């Protein structure tokens, strides 16, 4: 069973390496959106430090949405998805492999580039550290919840817009606590642990619930 997981994960990473533009698009989108704000609101340190955490998180949500539409669509178009549905492997496991690949390609790069983005907003080292940790916990949740939406809107015309409308409201808790953790870490006495623990709880629930839900949605969508 683990072998199937690795094979599919490896396949998706290999496919992404052969089509590198798709991965870079997400990353550049994130960097550009984040960089537009200082240009728009000015470079005053105080303003930037207040805006920073929120802007980074909103940009992360949008960047992760960007690649979500293609999560199952490519497999749907060439028939590999129906072959996956017809194997005796548990579908939630296959979904989890695909979501893991999606996160490694779109979520993890955002975590890694976060320090650079944080410097743009004059965030302190502690804040940047907390931001990376929060992104590390939060971005997989985005991929997992997004998979349900991607599975539901599969094969629909104009599915991209519908996907955003379905999924963005569900991202709100992650946004609130993700940005909250970074804001709180700016205050010396405040404790960021509850925020990070809540993000961890979101991650665990999403890990348990999203793959089965996406599997059911996929079976419905292929009808």
């Amino acid at each position: 069973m683990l072998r199937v997981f690795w094979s599919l994960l490896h396949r998706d990473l290999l496919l992404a390496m052969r089509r590198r533009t798709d991965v870079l698009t997400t990353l550049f989108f994130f960097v550009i959106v984040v960089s537009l704000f200082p240009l728009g609101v000015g470079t005053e340190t105080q303003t930037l430090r207040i805006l920073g955490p929120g802007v980074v998180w909103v940009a992360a949500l949008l960047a992760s949405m960007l690649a979500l539409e293609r999560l199952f669509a490519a497999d749907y178009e060439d028939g590999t998805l129906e072959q996956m549905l017809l194997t005796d492997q548990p579908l939630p496991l296959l979904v989890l492999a695909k979501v893991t690949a999606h996160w490694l390609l779109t979520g993890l790069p955002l975590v890694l580039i976060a320090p650079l983005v944080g410097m743009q907003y004059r965030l302190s080292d502690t804040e940047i550290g907390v931001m990376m940790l929060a992104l590390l916990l939060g971005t997989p949740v985005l991929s997992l919840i997004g998979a349900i939406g991607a599975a539901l809107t599969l094969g629909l015309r104009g599915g991209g817009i519908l996907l955003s409308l379905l999924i963005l409201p569900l991202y709100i808790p992650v946004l609130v606590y993700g940005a909250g953790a970074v804001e709180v870490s700016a205050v010396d006495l405040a404790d960021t642990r509850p925020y990070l623990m809540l993000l961890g709880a979101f991650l665990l629930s999403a890990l348990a619930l999203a793959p089965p839900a996406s599997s059911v949605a996929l079976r419905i969508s292929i009808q």
Partner: protein
Amino acid sequence: MLQATQLECRRGDRLLFSGLDFEVDAGTLLHVRGRNGSGKTTLLRTLCGLYSQDSGEIRWKGVPTRRLAEDYRRELMYFGHLNGIKGDLTGIENLRLSATLDGDAADSDAIWEALGRIGLFGFEDLPTRMLSQGQKKRVALARLILSRAPLWILDEPFTALDMDAVDLLQGLIADHVAGGGMTVLTTHQAVPLTSGQARHLDLGR
């Protein structure tokens, strides 16, 4: 073995077929015939479990397929209009992955042999999107060589294939049926289906 009783399917508001009864036993080939749009693909996809029927039941070895779920899917090999291969992967990579997913013997020798038999030696390092339509179909057909599933459901498997490949596929189906396997297929081509017991099912009458 595979048994359908009072099967009824609709697509949207259109009734495609109803009250369909048939049985496929070990060592039999069922040739589904009918005009374009008579519901052949729908029937085949319903048999696989990709579509759900509006009424009636499909049983595998006496048990409804819906209850069997993955135990039924393990016994099944579906070949549809879409080849189910990735254009950015090579033939070998495609076959290795589908063999892993199908739980078939996935050792490299078997895969190389299957590719050779299907006539794709020398093309194994090319991404399959560089191949011709017929060659892509051949890559997908190589899955049949690796498959150990007793039930093959083939939707128009002969389209885009040249004479050699048609002969090869016919041979594969004949061997499969002779070995006690079952095949349900649709085709418009006048392909002599010499293998074992061939039965016909006409849709859209």
